[in-house]
């Protein structure tokens, strides 16, 4: 217990943590101020109501220029509603065609049938106004730079001890290696949860305080990138779910990061490797061929990938949703990482 306290103390009272907190506060402020467009928002709200009453006969929509429209994409689905409807109809037609071509017993047929069932009744026909939630999802879930920085913060947990020769002291203390590793892992989980949740809740509060609570119950399919999402969720549910998934992905991925830091001797090396693997999995893991299976982590660090389209895995001929299969893969990989970590640390010896 006292070990855990020391570890937490070490993690929270670093200059890096302070720098991170100050920077993210500045950024939250800048982002929120930038997204909030005070003159336009009440007007947009009225436009949306008018659009729904008159079935789309709103002349004022033509007054918006292309750049203005693209800046307001996070606030309402007015400007791309027609495209959304077209795309969804096209998708349904394609599914029907595919069903007639495939044979009754193939995996592809079953998957298509499942997708058709899930998509039934999810067509978006109304305009919605969801400024708060659109920009929150945009800032926190779709482009998680904070995630990268948090992973960097925990990157040197073991190698800092090696570099400062503290490992000799730790190994000669009366507490065992196992307790030490357990304290490190638990402290890591607590640290990540506190930092991440405080940033998320602060951003949410500031955003709600500035731009209100409207639009929380609009369907997720009205958001820009989520037209093909097969789940029956509203925006608030998706936001909470997404934050949970991101937190889980962060904690599980940090086990890989800790594994790297037990292997490397210098903090800078583990820092570098962490940046490379997390950059690959967050920003641009190529989803191609066999790389798709390796890139499961990237679904957890970007919930957009998990919810964007219907995707299923072929398990003995029956389609199983990705949201059920992928957590299992990720948890298995992380448990393996924890095992390897404790193994490497148990074999660790001090050389002078």
């Amino acid at each position, binding site marked *: 217990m006292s070990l855990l306290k020391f570890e937490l103390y070490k993690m929270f009272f670093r200059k*890096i943590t302070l720098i991170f907190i100050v920077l993210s506060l500045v950024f939250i402020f800048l982002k929120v101020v930038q997204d909030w467009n005070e003159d336009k928002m009440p007007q947009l709200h009225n436009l949306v109501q008018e659009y729904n009453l008159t079935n789309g006969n709103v002349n004022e929509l033509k007054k918006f220029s292309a750049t203005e429209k693209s800046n307001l994409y996070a606030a309402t689905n007015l400007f791309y509603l027609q495209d959304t409807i077209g795309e969804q109809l096209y998708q349904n037609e394609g599914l029907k065609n595919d069903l007639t071509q495939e044979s009754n017993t193939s995996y592809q047929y079953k998957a298509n049938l499942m997708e058709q069932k899930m998509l039934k009744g999810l067509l978006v026909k109304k305009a919605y106004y969801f400024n708060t939630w659109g920009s929150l999802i945009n800032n926190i879930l779709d482009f998680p730079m904070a995630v990268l920085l948090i992973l960097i913060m925990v990157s040197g947990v073991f190698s800092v001890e090696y570099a400062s020769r503290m490992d000799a002291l730790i190994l000669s203390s009366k507490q065992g290696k196992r307790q030490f590793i357990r304290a490190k892992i638990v402290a890591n989980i607590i640290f990540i949860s506190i930092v991440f949740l405080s940033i998320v809740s602060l951003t949410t509060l500031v955003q709600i305080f500035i731009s209100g609570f409207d639009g929380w119950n609009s369907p997720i399919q009205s958001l820009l990138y989520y037209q093909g999402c097969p789940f029956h969720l509203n925006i608030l549910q998706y936001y909470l779910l997404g934050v949970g998934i991101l937190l889980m992905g962060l904690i599980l991925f940090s086990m890989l990061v800790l594994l790297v830091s037990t292997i490397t001797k210098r903090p*800078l090396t583990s820092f570098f490797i962490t940046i490379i693997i997390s950059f690959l999995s967050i920003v641009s893991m190529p989803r191609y061929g066999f790389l798709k299976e390796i890139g499961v982590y990237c679904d957890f660090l970007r919930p957009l990938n998990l919810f964007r389209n219907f995707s299923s895995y072929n398990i003995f001929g029956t389609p199983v949703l990705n949201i059920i299969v992928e957590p299992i893969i990720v948890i298995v990989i992380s448990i393996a990482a924890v095992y390897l970590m404790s193994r490497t640390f148990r074999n660790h010896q001090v050389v002078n």
Partner: protein
Amino acid sequence: MNLLKFELYKIYSRKTILLGITLISLVIIVFSCVNYYSTKKVMNNDVLYPGSWWSDHSMYLNKLSSEIADMKSKGEIGFEYKNKVLEYKMQKAIKPPDLQSSAHLHSYFLFDNSVVYFMLGIFLILGLPPMFSDEYSTGVDALILSSKLGKGTTVAAKILATVIFTVIAACIVFIVHIIVNLLIYGTGNLSVPFQVMSTYGSSPYSFSLFGYLVIQFLTNLSADIMFGLMIVTVSAFYRNVMIPAFVGACAVCITCYFKVVFPLFFQVITDMFKINSFFPDDLYSNFKAYNILGKPVLYPQISFVLTMIYAISFIFIIKYFYKRHTVLN
């Protein structure tokens, strides 16, 4: 001279640097291959001709000249007018392209370098933070301060080593990127004006594809040198290696973030925050000039001057701080 040799030896003798170069080359190779395979079907033998750009260009010239005449007749000869005239002059100066010449569509991959820039930034973070911090934390600074070479010489050697390391790193990463892409796609025709790529369609600068490649490299290099000096400055303040590294990582992330997310409202701030010379595509894709004492000055020039001012001020900060550095035991 001797000191410089030691500093460079200290940087390059670390195994981490070798690991970094290998990993970065691997990432670049994997990315290029994935780009190639995922777009193979789309761009079978697609070719870009300068024809459509050139007709748009002459229409745009007509529009500009009529606007200028309009403004002159109304008597508005302020900054806006001068701005328009400058743009007209620059657009007019572009020589007519050889309409038969063509470039392969792959030039997009040669010029879309954000991943390469990101990796380069990370590589600098790998190499530079120990510059001062390692010596503080291992106690070597006491030795250095008591040697017969002065503090000025030491700092000069360190700064030179930083610049040399940055230049070499940038060259290595770029050469790997270019060689991999040329191996995959073949050399093609690089003498076509770079406006054939639709991103740069309205650019007023008259570069060929090859010329733009060089300009892009040099612009990025200036930003890199500044970035390297920034990391070394932070490292002169702290004993802990992780602090300059983390500050550098924040700077790189914020740079990406700014580029992606802050298009309108904070335009002026981001423009002045050196950031666009790190990812040069925004710098050259449009005509943009700022009002300096009533005269329009081109954005790339301002950006370069600002980058250099930052770099020089970092050098002065390092010198000032290190001259006052004392050893506590």
